[in-house]
């Protein structure tokens, strides 16, 4: 580092009231380089970025030490001068592209506002600057797009607009706070590549905040790992990945998926097969889904005329054997959650049938419905939202047993205590309310509640996606252990390949409502057959910085984006399948 650093942080401590959340932090970022600040939630990484922006909550948040931007001390700067720094010399990209743009202002106007305030451009020059920025972040048709509102932009495009706004005034430093966490992997890969390109061009320093070591391996030059407000390891990205000093850093690196990103070509050319392939482990399937189709009506106009249908799930067929785990992967909007919801009657089924233990579920018959709801349980994504905040957890675990008349109060109480122990919670805490538990513990409660019904199948809808890496591993281990003990099957819906790889026996890949590939986990991830599966897998961040550039970037889908909304008269072409190896089926391109 021979160039003088853009930002230099020395002995930074941040406290809220009497609690100190960041202790004695030191780092420098040179022009054009990227420092990744890694840590789980609560480690103090976001607070650090707020301190640099001078956005700590007034009165209660206090920062000590020194933050020098281009040699100027920021901590003692007055608010008016700080405003010039913010957005001018330092700008920020937030995690949530859906909410960080103002929904009632045109995209071009929002971008123009930043440029006008910090550069003082007006009129035609301003418009030209806006167009220029939009072109730089590769927004197609910028002349048209600048007049549109944010809701017409996809998540990835919004994040690119955010990047444009951040870069608009040639800042010396960009703080990117989990900028790709909310994006799909393929979009994430494109966004990261764009950010890197632009950074090379402008020599901007980037402070990249993330919890994902894969992303760090992709973009960072230097890494600083934080835990509980303290630095626990720092160094260049190669040092940290090749020889992590701290056990915690090692566990973070090991949490990355291992199989993915190393796939080989399919071994034998796939052979076409007749009909719809369905396979499962064991003698009889616990769950069979045949030709399931879910559509949502699209109405428009004053009278709410039916103008089209959202084809959320199209002719999906699969089965799960006893004690088996099937992973359902795909990007947001691919219909994977809708399948789970349709099975338990939270989404309307258009056609097709669902069989649980060989018996067809009749969604119109309350008895059949009640039987299905005993046999099939669901664990939701958000452990904070899926529990009633006013109900003690003991009561929450007992309630389904009592409602379905499976046990008397005393038995239910005993079973609840036993279940709490099984999932690793102290039964004495049954009278506590959900908010007294951490995210991981709450997910344990949800698992206990699902198990209370002695179900045959548990649908886990992104059940571990909201958890920190270490906790995620624990919950997956718990789920695997409980599966062995209770011989329950899982339908594991997730976009998280590392989790899928660890827990799933088989995987089904979904793309725009259709299953495009299904087979054993090692077959699908190791020898993907469908184009989309390859694209998905190659977008997953690498696990070591040495792999940088060795892998072709996911080809950007240049064809017109497929829309799940189809006109009323649309009929899907019949799918044709081919088999690559035993139980590994690939849908042929239609």
């Amino acid at each position, binding site marked *: 580092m021979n160039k003088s650093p853009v930002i230099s942080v020395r002995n930074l401590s941040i406290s809220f009231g009497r609690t100190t959340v960041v202790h004695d932090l030191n780092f420098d970022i040179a022009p054009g380089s990227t420092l990744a600040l890694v840590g789980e*939630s609560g480690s103090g990484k976001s607070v650090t970025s707020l301190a640099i922006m001078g956005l700590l909550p007034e009165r209660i948040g206090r920062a000590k030490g020194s933050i020098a931007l281009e040699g100027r001390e920021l901590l003692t700067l007055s608010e008016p001068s700080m405003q010039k720094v913010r957005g001018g010399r330092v700008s920020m990209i937030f995690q949530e592209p859906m909410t960080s743009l103002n929904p009632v202002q045109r995209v071009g106007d929002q971008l123009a506002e930043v440029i006008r305030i910090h550069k003082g451009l007006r009129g035609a020059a301003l418009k030209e600057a806006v167009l220029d920025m939009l072109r730089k972040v590769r927004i197609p048709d910028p002349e048209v797009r600048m007049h549109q509102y944010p809701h017409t932009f996809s998540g990835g495009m919004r994040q690119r607009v955010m990047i444009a706004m951040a870069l608009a005034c040639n800042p010396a430093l960009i703080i990117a706070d989990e900028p790709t966490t909310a994006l799909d992997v393929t979009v994430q890969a494109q966004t990261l590549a764009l950010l890197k390109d632009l950074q090379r061009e402008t020599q901007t320093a980037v402070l990249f905040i993330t919890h994902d070591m894969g992303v760090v391996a992709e973009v960072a030059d230097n890494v600083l790992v934080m835990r509980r407000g303290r630095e626990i390891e720092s160094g260049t990205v190669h040092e940290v990945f090749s020889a992590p000093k701290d056990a915690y850093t090692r566990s973070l690196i090991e949490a990355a998926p291992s199989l993915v990103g190393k796939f080989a070509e399919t071994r034998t050319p796939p052979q076409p097969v007749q009909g719809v392939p369905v396979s499962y482990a064991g003698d009889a399937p616990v769950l069979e889904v045949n030709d399931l189709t879910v559509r949502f009506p699209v109405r428009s106009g004053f009278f709410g005329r039916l103008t089209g249908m959202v084809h959320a799930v199209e002719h999906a067929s699969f089965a799960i054997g006893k004690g088996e785990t099937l992973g359902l992967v795909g990007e947001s909007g691919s219909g994977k959650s809708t399948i789970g919801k349709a099975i338990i009657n939270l989404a309307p089924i258009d056609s097709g049938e669902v069989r649980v233990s060989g018996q067809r579920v009749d969604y119109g018959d309350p008895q059949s419905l009640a039987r299905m709801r005993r046999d099939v349980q669901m664990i939701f994504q958000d452990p904070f939202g899926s529990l009633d905040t006013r109900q003690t957890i003991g009561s929450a675990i007992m309630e389904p047993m009592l409602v379905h008349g499976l046990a008397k109060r005393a038995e239910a109480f005993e079973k609840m205590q036993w279940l709490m122990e099984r999932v690793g919670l102290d039964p004495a805490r049954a*009278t*506590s309310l959900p908010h007294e538990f951490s995210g991981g513990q709450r997910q344990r409660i949800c698992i206990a509640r699902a198990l209370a019904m002695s179900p045959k199948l548990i649908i886990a809808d992104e059940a571990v996606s909201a958890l920190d890496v270490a906790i995620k591993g624990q919950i997956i281990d718990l789920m695997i252990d409980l599966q062995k003990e209770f011989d329950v099957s899982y339908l594991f819906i997730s976009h998280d390949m590392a989790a899928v790889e660890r827990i799933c026996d088989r995987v089904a890949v979904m793309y725009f409502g259709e299953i495009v590939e299904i087979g054993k986990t090692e077959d699908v991830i190791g020898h993907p057959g469908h184009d989309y599966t390859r694209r998905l897998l190659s977008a997953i961040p690498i696990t070591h910085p040495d792999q940088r550039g060795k892998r072709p970037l996911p080809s950007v889908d240049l064809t017109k984006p497929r829309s799940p909304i189809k006109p009323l008269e649309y009929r899907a072409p019949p799918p044709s399948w081919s088999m690559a190896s035993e139980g590994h089926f690939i849908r042929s391109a239609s």
Partner: protein
Amino acid sequence: MTDTTVAPSTPIDRKSSIRAFLGQLNASTWIGVFIVLALVLAAIFAPQLATHSPARQSIMDQLALPGSQFWLGADQFGRDIWTRLLYGARYSLTIGMSAILVALVVGTVIGMIAGYVGGRIDIIFMQVMDVVLAFPSLILGLALVALMGATLTNIIIAIAFTATPAFARIARAGVITQRDREYVQACRAMGFSGPRILFRHIMPAILPEVMVMASLWMATAVRTEASLAFIGLGLAPPTPTWGGMVRDGFDNILSAFHLAIIPSLAILLLVLAFNLIGDGLRDAIDPRLKDAS
């Protein structure tokens, strides 16, 4: 982003969380609670606290000024104002509280069902509520009482009727925001019945807002009752009601203004107290509003 988990090994003491909630109430809320409690006690122990009989007339003591015999003076029939004020508190509080209780139960149930079921039921229920809401509550109460007759039950029903839409609206809004939460979906996925989800799981979440509404509307109910009595549609004389006392005193406002002023102050006090409680509860439940004011 920032982790908000509580240290897992320390269970929270439920009693202390109630205490924490009470600790959030500001001083003016406590003043309101104190006033209402004092008035409730005065109403309950009216016979013990009264110095005369509420209906005892005495020509000798007409328009007596406050003094040792009549603490707050006497009215144009020589009745003791202090005594009538105490007994009047009984009617004001009974009518105000029971009318709001009825409105709360009926309105909340209507609003919750409308919000949860949605569709046509929602439209019909809420259209009816909107029609009721469109009338000024005093005019509506007046019409109803005039139609049904001025008995205690009828006045309660009339006031409850005017207050019901407010509760229906707030309950519906609350249910709609809760309905799509994941915990409700989880309940449905476990096969819980609609009423169970609605009353066991959603209702506790919306009750705080409903309670705030109730205490604010209690002030309105007291005022409406007094207004009805003032224009002669209250309980028939000689029953002592505050509104009736104001009207009686109005005739002699120039010669003996304390006749009208004293019951007016009582009404003001009670309305103020309910408003203080309502505002305080709202601030405690939703701390964001504190900064706004």
